[in-house]
């Protein structure tokens, strides 16, 4: 059984109140939401559009803000992207691990590499960086530079 894809009109009807809806290209529709309303937008997309599958959550550092892109899809195979912007100095957002369980692991990764705090996440441990990596150093942020005086993990020089 194949379902027809979503069109811009249907997504605008369901998601219009969360922000600007635009067709980025065929089969890919973006909703520019805000960080307070991302959870509501995802609930709505699940209920009204059948978007019950998270493909990926992307985080982009544009230099000014941090952008989160929640790429959702479902049996209709249309990718609905919900976008939120976070200020760099206050990068908190509500976790969606309870709505979309696979999102939890993406959130851990973004917390590790980009320094975004997902509030409500039960287990924001490190997932990629080493255990002895210093706190509040986020290597994938554009303005991050390695501090040569700091120890970033591995084996200390004296030990070798």
């Amino acid at each position, binding site marked *: 059984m194949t379902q027809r894809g979503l069109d811009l009109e249907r997504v605008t009807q369901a998601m219009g109140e969360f922000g600007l809806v635009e067709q980025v290209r065929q089969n890919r529709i973006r909703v520019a939401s805000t960080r307070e309303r991302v959870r509501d937008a995802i609930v709505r997309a699940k209920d009204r559009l059948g978007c019950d599958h998270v493909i990926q959550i992307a985080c982009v550092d544009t230099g000014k803000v941090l952008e989160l892109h929640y790429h959702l899809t479902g049996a209709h195979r249309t990718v609905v992207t919900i976008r939120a912007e976070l200020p760099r100095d206050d990068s908190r957002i509500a976790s969606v691990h309870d709505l979309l369980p696979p999102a939890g692991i993406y959130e851990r990764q973004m917390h590790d590499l980009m320094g975004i705090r997902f509030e409500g996440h039960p287990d924001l441990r490190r997932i990629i960086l*080493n255990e002895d990596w210093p706190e509040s150093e986020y290597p994938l942020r554009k303005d991050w530079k390695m501090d040569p005086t700091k120890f970033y993990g591995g084996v200390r020089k004296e030990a070798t």
Partner: protein
Amino acid sequence: MKLSERLVRWARLKSPWIILFNSGACNACDIEILAALTPRFDVERFGILAKGSPRHADILMVTGPVTRKQAKRLRMIYEQMPDPKYVIAMGACGASGGVFKGLYHVVDGVDKIVPVDVYVAGCPPRPDEIIDAVVRCLELMKKDMERGGKTWRIDEGTEEPRTEAATA
């Protein structure tokens, strides 16, 4: 020299056991090592066996740049090996970090963590070059045995023993 010593010496040169360790490689070097172990290249004719435990091994083969996560583990594996122990660093990454040199999550070459005896060039090295490296490592072992340890390879001014670069 006692008979038992001569026997140990002969056995060690006839059948070096190696352990493979991936310290953050892209897997290309590992594939080439596995190719070298298969019947087409057949390193077992030199008595080389790949073992699962560092406590059984004479030669440690390290593939790839050393990531910060793997650095401590590599050090631990090296310390578990019985003396005399030898290390072969595979490929461009093992020698200097290769394309990953200077990244935030790597500490570059293998020699930053453990002393390396033989470097193999290539990205990845061919199985023939890997065999050549192991044979050169055996020659190095023989020389070390004759001169009683690795100290003869230390150059004046440097503290590390001189190493062998295997290029085919």
